[in-house]
Structures are given as C-alpha cells and as structure tokens.
C-alpha cells in the first residue's frame, strides 16, 4: 500500500506538515491537534517527522477494547469515531507515540482519504506519499551510487 515515507535527514523542522494537518483535518489552527509530529533535538537543531506507519499488525488495534480501530482491506488503519470510547488504551500502546489523544477523542493519521496534505507542503521531500517498495529501491540505488563514488569508479 502507499504510505507516508519519512526521510528524517531531509527534515528542516518547519512544522508546515503539522500546521496543514490540523487545519485540514480539524479545521483549526492548533498544532496540538496534528496527526503528524516533528521531533526535535534542540541542541543540535535537528528534526524528524513522525507519522503513523499503518502497521501490518497494529498494536493500537489490538489494544482497543471496543474494536473501534479497524484495518481496511487497503491496509489503512482507521479509528471509528462513533465507536471510540476515548479510553486512550491505544495511545500508550503505539510504539511511535503517534496516536493522538485530544480532549474529546483519539485520532490518528488516516492519509487524508488517499491524498495526504502534509506531503504537499514538504519543501525538502522529508515526507513522501508512495509505495515503500519503490522508495527502498531508490535508496538502494543511491547507496550504490555512493559506493561507486567512494571507490571513484
């Protein structure tokens, strides 16, 4: 399936992804509502985006006592707002800390119905929407080129 692929080394930490996420999904200018987050190592000035990886075996889904979290045939992991009781059991189970507990509900990245807004605002390509298989292939090629460069071939 297509996912948001993260290249942390390209992130400049501008938080435009968070800003558009909250505005698009919550209609609010409130970064605490964003489903994508930028982690910061302030002393080095470095940042990295964190977003739901749409796990094959989602710990959040397993943790949900009322089966409000579902994996769709496409692979997308979704929270059913109607069924969710807001217990936040999933929040503590997510190994990436990217289930977002809001005062009134729990939300997660659901890829904006196949058109993730955040990637449109990433000027450096630190987040991309695509097939991880192809992304990995690209990485192999670039590693190969790097190797060749080092060998001065």
């Amino acid at each position, binding site marked *: 399936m297509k996912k948001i692929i993260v290249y942390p080394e390209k992130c400049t930490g*501008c938080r435009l992804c968070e800003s558009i996420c909250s505005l698009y999904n919550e209609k609010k*200018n409130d*970064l605490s509502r964003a489903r994508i987050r930028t982690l*910061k190592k*302030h002393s080095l000035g470095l940042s990295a985006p964190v977003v739901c990886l749409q796990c094959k075996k989602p710990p959040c889904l397993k943790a949900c006592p009322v089966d409000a979290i579902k994996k769709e045939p496409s692979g997308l992991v979704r929270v059913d707002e109607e069924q969710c009781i807001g217990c936040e059991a999933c929040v503590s189970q997510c190994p990436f800390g990217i289930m977002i507990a809001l005062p009134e509900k729990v939300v997660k990245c659901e890829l904006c119905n196949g058109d993730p807004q955040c990637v449109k605002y990433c000027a450096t390509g630190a987040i991309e929407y695509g097939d991880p298989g192809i992304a990995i292939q690209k990485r192999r090629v670039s590693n190969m080129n790097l190797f060749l460069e080092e060998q001065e071939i």
Partner: protein
Amino acid sequence: MNPIAFIDLSTQTVAVKPIPEEIRRLFLGGRGINMYLLYNYLKEGIDPLSPENPLIFGAGLLTGTHGMATARFNISAKSPESGNLGDSNSGGFFGPELRFAGFDHLFISGRSASPVYLWIHDGEIEFREAGHLKAYNLPQTLDAIRTELGDQDIQVASIGPAGRRLVVFANVMCTIGDAAGRTGMGTVMGSKNLWAIAVRGKRPIEVVNPQRLMEVAAKQYRQITQTKGYKATSLYGTLMRLSISRTQGQEPAHNYQDNMLESGGEEFDPDVFVQKYEYGKMACFNCPVHTKHLHRVPSGEHKGLSGAGPEYGGAGYFGSSCGTGDWVTIMECWDLSNQYGMDILTTAGYIAWVMELYQRELIDESITGMPLRWGDHDAMTKLIHQMGRREGFGGMLSDGWQRANRRFFGERAKEYERYIPTIKGMTVDQDTRGTKAMALGAATATRGGGCHLRSRFTMEEMDLPPEATKKFIGRPVTSDPDSYEGKAYPAIWTENLCAVGDALGICRFVTKWLSPGLLGFNEFTETISAVTGYEFTPEKLIETGERIYNLERLFLIREGLDRKDDRVPERFHEPWKYGFQKGSNIEQDKFEKLLDEYYQEHGWDKQGIPTRETLERLGLSEEPSHLL
C-alpha cells in the same frame, strides 16, 4: 484573538486585558502594537536600564497561523545600546507558541528582586526562580528550562551570560539559531532580572475561514517555492549575500575602509562553507525556505566546533569587516557570541573598530594587552570572551562604543568617532554607498544602525527597467543604483513593507523585500482576510505601514532626534576603491536634497517632524491615546 498580559516583575502580579479591535485595525500586531504600547507607556528621557523601561513582546497578527513563514515576533523597549528606539525581531517557534499559550503580547515592567523566569502555559503565567541557571550559557539555558519543566515542545526565549551581566548589546535567543539581536533587548531583560520566558500551549489560534486560508496558503507556498531564486535562497540562505558582496564590491572590509577583501581568497565562498562545514538546515515555523545553516568542523585544530549559522552577518562582519575570510574563525566567533548571548553585528562591529584603531596606532598594547591585527583568530575570540565576561580590554567595550571611545581618547573623543561607523548610536550593518535608496533607508531607519531590516530597496541592485519597478511598487524607478533621482519613494515603499511584515509576523525572506516575485501587500490582504476577516486593500495596508513608521518617528523626535541624526557614517562620503561601482560615494549636498524629497513625500517638515496633517491622515494626532 488573544489578549495582552501586563506583567509587573516588582510585585509579581499579572493583569490580562483584551486588545481593542480599534487598535488591531490600526496597528495589526507584532511591531505595530509594540510601538503603540511603547509610545504610550514609555516616559520621555528615562534610563533604558531602569525598572520604568517597559519590555514588550509581541507576536504578529498572523504569527502561528497557516500563512507562509509566519514565525516572527518583536521585542521592543528603549534601547540601552543606542539610547533610542529599541526593537528587534526574531523567527523560530517562540512567537507561534506564545500565541498557542494564549497571549499575543506581553508588557513587562518593573524589576524582580532576584532572578526569575516566566512560565506561560495555556493562559497561566507563573514566576519561577532562575538563579540556578547562572551556570549555563545561552543555548544550554534553553535546554535546561525545557528539561526542568519536563516538556521538549516548550519554546524558550532567553538571555545568556552577557545579558545577565548587562553587556549593552546582549541579545535574546529562542533556538540555537534564532535571535532578536540588535538594540540590546537582552540587556533590558537582564536589568529586570528576567532571565527567560518559557511558553507552551494548546490553544488554537482563531481562523475565521479555514477553507480560504488553505487555498491562500497553497497558492503562496507555490509562489514561494517556484520563484527563480528559491533554489539559491534555500541552499545558501543569507550567505547568498556574501557572493554578491564579494563580486560586486560591497564588502564591509576592514571596518568599511575597503569594499573588497583581498585576503579572502577562493575559500571565502558560500559553496565552500556548504560543502565543508554544513551538516543540516533548520527552518523557522511554517517556512519552506529553511535558510538557517547548521555547521560542524570535521577535522583539524577546531574539530568538533558546532552550532547553528553562520548567517551573512557573521561572514560579512566577523569575516570581511574584521579582515578575514577564514570560515573556522567566523564560526567560532559566531558560536561564542551566541553562547554569551551578544548581538553578532555589534560584537563584530566593535572588534573591527578596535582593529582599525590598532592599525592606525591610535591604541596600542599598553591598553589592549594584545596585538589586534586584522583577521587574528586568537585576538578575535579573546575579545569576545572579554566582552561577554566584562574582563580586560574587551570588557571596556561591554558598555558600548561611546563610553569606550571616551576612555580611549578622553576630551578628544569626538574627533575619533569617525572610525566607528554608526547611525543613531548603532554600528551599521551594510555598506550603502553605491545604492542611494538603500542609503536613504539606512540613514533614516528608526532603530538606527543603517538597518537593512527597516528599509532596504533590494530591487535597486537588480538592474530592473523603470517599467518593471512601476509594476512592482507603483512608480518607475531608474535602474541606476548610483542615481539619487526619485529614490525617496522606493525607500518609503520598503519601510512600509517591512513595518507591515513585522506587524503580521511574516519573514522578509518570503516577501518582495527579497525579490519582486515573492509576497507583497496583495498577498498579505488575502491571508489577513482568511485569518481575521478584516478586509484591507493594499493601499490601506501601505497606510498601516506608514502609521507604524510615523509613530516610531514620533518616538525618536520625543527623545530629541531629528534631521541631524538622519545621516550616513562619515566614511560613506569616501569613494569605494574597487569593483564596477568604484568611485561611488554619498555626496552630502545631493543626499540632503534627497532627504528633503523624502521628508516631503512622508509629509514631514524640513526637520523631519511629521506635520499635523500627516498625523491626522494617519489617525495619530491624538497619540498618546492610551486606548489599551
């Protein structure tokens, strides 16, 4: 919209007041409302380091919103560095987080009996002990407060050791690479025993039309990232200026004695910096341009030296101005200044000044304690340590050039002032001899220092035909940068763009200040409308810029400044020695005529004082009005 907090450090009390819509519509926010507060509340003639000097923090009207590059906030007070208008702007994430924490402006008065920092979160303001932070330098302080409060998403604006020791050009930093540097706002913080402000919040910024804001932002994002210059801007950041200055002969070399640095060599080039020393890039809030560099020295004697920057201010002033093109020297001086929390431009300006005095044998080792040869790495770093610690010869500079100059030359001090290029008491930050609209903007800049952030008509050096400038700014301007002809209007147009940009919290680097293809008044009106529902026309917005600038002018006049202070440094009357604009200088008689034209265009009298009609037209005739 968020209220303002009036914080009295003497009594540790807070009063929260809404900002009347009338004030919002007249001054927007950020620098605009800061100036309104400063003009209304600052008593004439007070000592900048007295508890009566208000210290005002203000986030822009659009700061923290989904508009592009809406990161910025202003800190304003009476300046201990210049004795005049103090105002400094910073990017990063502090401004947005201040708004998420529930406040748009902070008006801080009084003086705390012991060191404190403010912890502002979700509408609450706490006073906390700060004495234990004494052990830390500036970047360490930022981290220490985050760790102490237990949240890495907290944003902190802090002073460093220099601010705590009242070095008059101390800055306020809010990340390792973002500073409100000029005019000594960190010194004012230090004088109040206020060592830092930490902010964090989960309060949304009200947006009246989210759908419209998304459309406007998408359009502006494309506009910014598809401009021809975007690639270079995002790669080199402000260091772009270095290549231009070096090839065109606009370097402030040897304290502006030369306009090209001979000893720089090919190594002194942004490409070399990027390839050899850059390990990453850092952006401000909501900005696709990400101009800030992160550097690390990979090998050699200074291996491991690391930090954010340098910006052009470092390369041009620790570099060219101090007579060196050595990146390692520039980076080390840059990092040290940041660690002490001292303004880069003033620190470097003072070093270049004393190096020239040493070159001319006006001061010698009996007073300096060391040789001060141009570009001497050890002398430069030692001077910075001394300034930051108030020790030795460097410590003589910590109270500002005026006092140091008097200590060097006693009764004859006045005649030696020509060796330190200043405007309105601040060291200048650009050589504008060959660009007359910029020279005018620099001479009249309300915060002094020839400030390129108050008025710098960048299009002047782009060789644009008059039809093109007419399209961009409303009047044709000659493509000859050396001509005085019609240069008052573009200087004023740029002032207004800068004033409005600061009142909105938008960075210069995404506006027409940098390049005509970027955002301008038209785009600003669209974002303002989507966020606040206020309907401005570009003309109304330009008038708002004028209002802010005129209020700053009133401030200066009240403090005793007038036409005599709207001048370029004496040195700028000497011709440039090198480059294709060799021979360019500022001719006093022509400049005076241009100044007349500028005053007239502004609606000011011959002394540069706004006339009654001008103040009435701008709604300033009742100031100070104390509506807030």
